[in-house]
């Protein structure tokens, strides 16, 4: 009965409604005891319209909560309750909860909101409203044309609608003809209305229905609705599918007309509907006063501001006008061009070509403008965050915001939101010092965090600064080194700025104590990843004792970017200009002074600093081609690396002297430094560092249109997209950050340490292999006691806290801790795994708050707790058992990888007994407790997505899962573990060995193991082939219930068959 798309609309609209609530509440608190009615009304309306919608979608919890919020706001509005910090806190908490409920409406009804409800009810009951004023004071009446009936709405409601830019529409339609006949129900229609506005009044023409003695039940059921909405006539007609002739936009009388604004009798634009007279509202109902009669003559037309609802964007009329003008220009230019071509006069063709160039550029700019949104939309979220942070930390912090009006592409704005939130939190939590510390340092007690946005040379610069202690560069370096993220050698050549930039690496958090506010040890790398994703740059500014800042440079838009074209081995590549710092030519004769070796790398000496130097061809793994200086023919260049010491020669030192040698096959190195082959170098920046790329040739810069790369290439981090050049050929766009990782310059992008070497076939081979199988994995690293290293997947971690032993309460054999007013059970790994007892020692303890089966559990750990992103493979055979995913070699040490969900299954089996995770309908039907622990299923699929999805499904039903990325791998695993396996679930289309072949081989080995083929191929031919190959069940991807059912049956039957054989 619920309509999915209405629900989506409702959720979106609720999100919009909630967007300004935080700031309004914070503002209310600031303004107290003054009450800004408009502010309160806005918040009230947000709660109110959510309540209305929630009612229709059976979202009882959301409805209840918004109702309670509404009650408290009503008290504030009536000045019965002052918005003091206490009250605002409770309201903010309530709205937060409302937001999270809306984020997950599926489970909203199961959520426990008693905390919020009790708090809100407490507020409401302690301030019982004074005898309710005769509040239904004035009603406006809207007679229904052709009927004696009248629709009514409170003047207050109408004023509110008008102030919000909403209009009032009268809808006349027939529930039988316009609704029933279209297969819709009244509930759906009203749901759609409530989702797009609010129903102020409605009336059903009862008399038209007749009674039970009529021949047919309700052949007509006329229905009239007074509806307040931002939608236009067409918009309304679209959402509820009624003819536009049944919709009339009402003109609104104002209670108090603004001077000069009202023109008597002015019609609302767009409101005139042919054939439908506009009924004038009667202000002279029995309840109205003489005063009002005067005002009803005045009209207000502010309701003209309307939106057509979903999938639309608001465009300034001026922008549209401009587009129209440009379109006109374009037509003229085209005519001119056609004429010029006809005339065959080259000069006029060129002239019109130029004209079209100009017009096209203007058009491009104008179209881009339509996607722009003020960054203030984003900035406005932060006053609330800073307020909360000040309350949580006890610090005094002021937020200053400037540049709200700077406009940025919508997509960029969305991507920027998380990073900026993180940075603001960090600034408050780690940047600004405690008041006492500030005072001692002679600073003002109140710290300042500032957010600024401005345009700068075709980019948008967003700066977040604080006047706190600054980043402890040495601590960052030391930490990075201790984690193996950077070598001491490389640190030597790093500027302070580059050292500070190390905090962007995954796994590095220098917060001295992990607080539950912002120090989860994850985050800065997410900031970097998000900013990289939109082609932005992040620069870190820090001054010890004076403060720190982050300067984020963003492209204005993502679709078209100015780029530098370079070429290597005859292929062209584009480097976004924002990443290009400078271009230089290193003369062959200069090379020995400009290029040096440090460790095993080449570096470029640039104005006294060292910059890592990478040959682009090597970094990309393309064969280098050089022109034979004599014949001009391209020949392969065999030197593997710019800094290759092959033949015992020092790169960059011997080269220039041997410039005249002409034996390319043997002495490439010399030819490198031939006078004709100066180095063309592009100095680029990436998230973590600056480096230099050696290319064959530098070309123009041009504006390129970015085309996304196909899914097959999504793992290639060195490219961010592709573009089509003027001559029709394609060029790949380089991602300087991904390229740096590829070249082994930084450890980012999944590589755990920077050990990968640039260039060479090995590197190329390695990457293609890695690209095919390994996937970057976010892990939380921790200790169990002094010696055992453990890890768990970051997804399962909610937060990490430092705790004292005395924080843990013990009742019987169970441990627990109180967190956020909740009791959370606490476990040691030793409770389920064969590891040492963490409680035995006396060292420090950390508590990892993890989630399993939608509940929290605490897992005790020994600090340091850290996070990293790794491609290390998880070995599921060396250490296997309940609660373990396996082991991995991380930072050179064997680390146990805990499977939180499974761990919880062992320590808290009751959480899983009847919950939503016992998913198989099969199991539920038979009442059996699920498959035996240890029923191991081999899952073979080359798609990571499907493989992990299948794994999730199987693991959720209690199976153990062995994963294989293709048929060959699966067969190998089968060979090793055949006896332990209970079934195989295999994809058909796989590289190396397909599912048919896998099945044939398994059968050929004489095994009767159940095999399920799970595929997107579904032709009869495929089915036949699968059966021939020995597949037991053939299913089309991916029906969870079917899969579990088939698997359960097959395993039971094969078990029974085995038993019989015995």
């Amino acid at each position, binding site marked *: *009965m619920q309509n999915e798309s209405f629900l989506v609309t409702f959720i979106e609209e609720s999100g919009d409604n909630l967007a300004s609530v935080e700031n309004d509440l914070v503002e209310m608190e600031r303004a107290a005891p003054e009450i800004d009615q408009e502010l309160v009304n806005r918040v009230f309306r947000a709660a109110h319209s959510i309540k209305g919608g929630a*009612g*229709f*979608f*059976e979202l*009882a919890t959301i409805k209840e909560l918004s109702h309670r919020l509404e009650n408290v706001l009503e008290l504030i509005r009536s000045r019965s309750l002052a918005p003091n910090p206490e009250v605002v806190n409770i309201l903010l908490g309530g709205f937060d909860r409302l937001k999270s409920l809306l984020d997950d409406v599926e489970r909203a009804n199961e959520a426990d909101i008693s905390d919020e409800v009790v708090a809100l009810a407490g507020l409401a009951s302690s301030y019982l409203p004074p005898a309710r004023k005769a509040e239904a004071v004035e009603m406006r009446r809207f007679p229904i044309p052709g009927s004696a009936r009248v629709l009514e709405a409170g003047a207050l409601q109408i004023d509110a609608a008008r102030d919000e830019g909403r209009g009032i529409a009268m809808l006349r339609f027939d*529930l*039988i003809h316009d*609704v*029933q006949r279209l297969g819709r*129900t*009244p*509930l759906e229609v*009203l749901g759609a209305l*409530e989702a797009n506005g609010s*129903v102020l*009044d*409605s*009336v*059903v023409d*009862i*008399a038209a*229905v*007749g*009674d*039970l*003695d*009529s021949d047919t*039940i*309700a052949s007509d*059921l006329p*229905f009239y609705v007074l509806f307040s909405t931002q939608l236009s006539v067409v918009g309304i007609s679209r959402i509820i599918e009624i003819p536009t002739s049944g919709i009339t936009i009402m003109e609104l009388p104002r209670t108090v007309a603004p001077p000069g604004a009202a023109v008597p009798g002015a019609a609302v634009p767009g409101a005139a509907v042919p054939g439908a007279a506009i009924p004038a509202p009667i202000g002279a109902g029995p309840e109205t006063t003489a005063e009002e009669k005067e005002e009803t003559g005045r009209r207000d037309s502010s309701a003209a501001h309307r939106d057509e609802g979903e999938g639309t964007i608001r465009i300034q009329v001026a922008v549209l006008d401009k587009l129209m003008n440009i379109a006109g220009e374009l037509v003229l230019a085209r005519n001119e061009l056609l004429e010029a071509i006809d005339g065959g006069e080259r000069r006029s063709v060129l002239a019109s070509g130029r004209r079209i160039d100009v017009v096209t550029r203007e058009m491009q700019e104008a179209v881009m403008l339509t996607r722009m949104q003020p960054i203030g939309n984003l900035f406005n979220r932060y006053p609330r965050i800073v307020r909360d942070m000040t309350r949580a930390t006890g610090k005094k912090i002021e937020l200053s915001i400037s540049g709200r009006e700077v406009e940025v592409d919508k997509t960029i704005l969305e991507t920027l939101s998380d990073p900026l939130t993180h940075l603001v939190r960090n600034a408050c939590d780690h940047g600004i010092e405690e008041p006492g510390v500030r005072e001692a340092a002679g600073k003002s007690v109140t710290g300042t965090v500032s957010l600024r946005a401005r345009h700068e040379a075709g980019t948008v610069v967003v700066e977040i600064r604080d006047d706190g202690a600054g980043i402890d560069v040495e601590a960052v370096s030391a930490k990075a080194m201790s984690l193996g993220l950077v070598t001491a050698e490389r640190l030597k050549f790093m500027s302070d700025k580059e050292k500070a930039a190390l905090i962007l690496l995954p796994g590095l958090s220098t917060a001295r104590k992990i607080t539950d506010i912002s120090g989860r040890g994850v985050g800065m790398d997410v900031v970097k990843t998000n900013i990289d994703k939109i082609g932005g740059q992040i620069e870190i500014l820090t001054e010890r004792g004076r403060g720190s800042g982050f300067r984020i440079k963003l492209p204005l838009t993502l679709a078209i970017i100015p780029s530098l074209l370079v070429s290597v081995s005859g292929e062209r590549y584009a480097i976004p200009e924002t990443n290009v710092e400078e271009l230089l030519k290193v003369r062959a004769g200069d090379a020995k002074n400009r290029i040096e070796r440090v460790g095993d790398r080449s570096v470029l000496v640039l104005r006294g600093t060292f910059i890592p130097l990478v040959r682009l061809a090597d970094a990309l793994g393309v064969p280098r081609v050089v022109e034979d200086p004599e014949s001009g023919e391209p020949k392969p260049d065999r030197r593997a690396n710019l800094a290759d010491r092959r033949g015992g020669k020092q790169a960059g030192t011997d080269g220039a002297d041997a410039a005249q040698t002409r034996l390319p096959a043997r002495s490439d190195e010399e030819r490198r430094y031939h006078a004709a082959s100066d180095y063309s170098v592009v100095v680029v920046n990436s998230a973590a560092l600056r480096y230099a790329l050696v290319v064959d040739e530098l070309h123009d810069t041009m504006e390129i249109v970015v085309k996304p790369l196909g899914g097959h290439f999504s793992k290639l981090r060195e490219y961010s997209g592709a573009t089509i050049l003027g001559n029709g050929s394609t060029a790949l766009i380089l991602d300087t950050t991904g390229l740096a990782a590829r070249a082994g310059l930084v450890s980012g992008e999944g590589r755990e340490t920077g050990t990968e070497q640039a260039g060479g076939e090995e590197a190329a081979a390695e990457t293609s292999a890695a690209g095919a199988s390994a996937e970057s994995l976010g892990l939380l690293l921790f200790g169990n006691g002094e010696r055992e290293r453990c890890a768990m997947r970051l997804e399962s971690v909610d937060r990490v806290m430092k705790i004292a032993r005395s924080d843990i309460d013990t009742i019987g054999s169970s441990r627990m801790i109180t967190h956020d007013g909740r009791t959370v059970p606490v476990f040691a790994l030793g409770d389920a795994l064969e590891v040492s007892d963490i409680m035995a020692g006396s060292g420090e303890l950390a508590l990892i708050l993890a989630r399993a089966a939608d509940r929290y559990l605490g897992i005790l750990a020994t600090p340091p707790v850290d996070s990293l992103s790794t491609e290390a493979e998880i070995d599921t055979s060396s250490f296997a058992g309940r609660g373990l995913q396996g082991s991995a070699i991380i930072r050179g040490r064997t680390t146990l990888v805990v499977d939180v969900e499974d761990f919880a299954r062992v320590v808290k089996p009751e959480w899983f007994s009847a919950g939503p995770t016992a998913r198989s309908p099969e199991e539920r039907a038979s009442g059996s407790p699920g498959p035996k622990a240890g029923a191991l299923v081999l899952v073979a699929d080359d798609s990571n997505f499907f493989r992990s999805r299948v794994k999730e499904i199987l693991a959720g039903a209690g199976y153990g899962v062995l994963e294989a990325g293709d048929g060959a791998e699966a067969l190998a695993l089968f060979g090793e573990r055949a006896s332990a396996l209970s079934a195989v679930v295999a994809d058909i289309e796989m590289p190396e060995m397909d599912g048919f072949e896998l099945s044939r081989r398994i059968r050929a080995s004489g095994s009767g193991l159940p095999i399920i083929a799970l595929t997107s191929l579904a032709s009869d031919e495929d089915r036949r082939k699968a059966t021939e190959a020995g597949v037991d069940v053939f299913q089309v991807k991916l029906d969870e219930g079917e899969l579990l059912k088939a698997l359960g049956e097959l395993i039971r039957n094969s078990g029974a068959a085995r038993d019989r054989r015995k």
Partner: protein
Amino acid sequence: MNENPSYRPGRDIVVATVDAMKAELKELIASSTGNLTVDMSGVEMIDSKGLGLLIAASNTLGASARKLRIVGAVPDIVELFRVMRLDRHFEID
């Protein structure tokens, strides 16, 4: 004569079921006096025809100054009645 009768459709009141229900209601109303209680438990969906049926029943009852009472309706149906202002015609518990 049955006084204050009650009626429990027990299934959705939609176009497919209204004709049968109409006959039952008609008979029940004719053979009773006092207000009619419609027990909506078990009704998950009501369409326009269904609304028409309830209104027609209410109209029939109204002719002899009797009322239609609704009990046990799920929240969204109650909400539907409320938004449609049918609570002015039916008594809703």
